């Protein structure tokens, strides 16, 4: 894990953290106020309320988990946080990085790999878009390939990989951009128990070593009974912080959860 320590220097904070007048240690990196979202489906003239009244502060280095039944708006919320969908109502503040760079990195529920790019080329997409020199971005990608245990598969195309391998590539691709907030939409769903365990440990380690904010969305909440989580009807998402759910995900901040 040494390379990770080098790649993600500790104490990274978005440049604007002090804008809230908060100390660096407890900097609020993300603030949701009363976020709501209604989807309009043109074809059927339907309106689907996906989210309503979500308020939440996320601090630097927090590990949050979002639980709720299928269709309750978890993916929608993550996409809003990522800036990929407009919130219908409410405000979203993400602390900006000093260089104005995007702070969030997302692992999509459907992986969203570029079919025409190999594993390596998928992983370097972000750095390539940011014009990181080729040699450097490929060297970084090699480390990530080791992290996700896909050595030997670098030059495979996504359709030549198993579902779990694709998921790991999606994970590495998000990590390659070194985002301050990692957003995982069901990050470990299609992995076998063993690989999932490995990646759980890795995720926690990445999080602990970098003090990055992780904003996870786990599978069906029922699968993690020990989790303190609330359930609500579809149409309202639950945000729960991480008490000691399991050994792998022990959280140091042991945090409150705010919702509603």
């Amino acid at each position, binding site marked *: 894990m040494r390379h990770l320590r080098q790649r993600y220097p500790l104490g990274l904070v978005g440049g604007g953290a002090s804008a809230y007048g908060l100390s660096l240690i407890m900097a609020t990196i993300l603030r949701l106020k009363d976020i709501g979202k209604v989807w309009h489906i043109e074809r059927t003239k339907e309106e689907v309320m996906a989210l309503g009244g979500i308020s939440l502060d996320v601090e630097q280095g927090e590990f949050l988990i979002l639980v709720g039944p299928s269709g309750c708006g978890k993916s929608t919320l993550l*996409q809003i946080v*990522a800036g*990929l969908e407009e919130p219908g109502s409410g405000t979203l503040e993400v602390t900006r990085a000093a260089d104005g*760079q*995007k702070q*969030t*990195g*997302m692992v*999509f529920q*459907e992986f*969203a*790999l*570029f*079919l*025409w*790019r190999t594993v390596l080329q998928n992983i370097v*997409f*972000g750095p*390539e*878009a*940011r014009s990181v020199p080729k040699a450097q971005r490929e060297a970084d990608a090699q480390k990530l390939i080791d992290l996700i245990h896909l050595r030997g598969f670098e030059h495979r*195309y*996504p*359709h030549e990989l198993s579902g779990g391998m694709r998921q790991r590539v999606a994970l590495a*691709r*998000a990590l390659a*951009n070194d985002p301050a907030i990692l957003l995982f939409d069901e990050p470990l769903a299609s992995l076998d128990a063993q690989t999932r365990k490995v990646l759980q440990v890795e995720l926690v380690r990445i999080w602990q070593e970098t003090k990055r904010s992780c904003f996870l969305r786990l599978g069906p909440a029922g699968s993690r009974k020990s989790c303190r989580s609330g359930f609500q009807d579809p149409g309202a998402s639950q945000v729960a912080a991480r008490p000691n759910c399991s050994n792998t995900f022990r959280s140091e901040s042991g945090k409150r959860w705010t919702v509603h």
Partner: protein
Amino acid sequence: MWRRYRPLRIISPVAFLIIWEGVVRLDEVNQLIIPAPASVLRTMIDLTIDGRLPWAIIASLNRVLQGFIYGSLLGIVLGLLVGWFRAVEDAVDPLVAATYPIPKSALFPLFMLWFGLGETSKVITILIGVLFLVLINTVTGVKAIDPVLLKAARDLGANQRQIFTKVVIPGALPNIFTGLRLGAGMALILVFITELEATKAGLGFLLWESYQLLLVKQVFSCTIAFGILGILSSWMLQWLERAVCPWKRV
């Protein structure tokens, strides 16, 4: 790609030729209308040796290639723009919808009036035919790109230009190749039609002239030459597609 050897793929056409040859030799059909394969082959060789077939092919290929290359390039560029930019779509779509259903061969007389009886009117007719097919398929390809890929690119920090070059273009490539394949077929149809008029060179001309002189073996030779051009063009496009889209199992 490794393929299981399938003998029927060879046996079937060979059997077809043998039966054809046999039936003709037994004098079951009028050889003036349906010549035997062997005699057609002999005619083809004669036509090749005296240079008429090669020159006809060169003249036709020249028109086909010009029309195909310009038409495809225009079609790809326009198609990408129409598929990606709303404003371009709004501007171009009604024009395409209105002009696409016109048979391109019906435009040839007009083009002869406008561009003269020379090569230009022929090339432009082919160009237009190819353009539409490539354009429409390229637009389909752009629209078929999974929106989550565009989101992913955006999430990874790509700007609009990078999304266009790194996601939209490669994402549309498979459909672009569908358009190119259809366009190649269309180009061969159109070159034949344009060579019925105002020329003394080309495979279409040779075929038509042979028909008028009732030289049926020559008609067959030209038809076969057209077929070979069709097969070659589809092989070349397949090869190109494999080279350009290695992620696709063609």
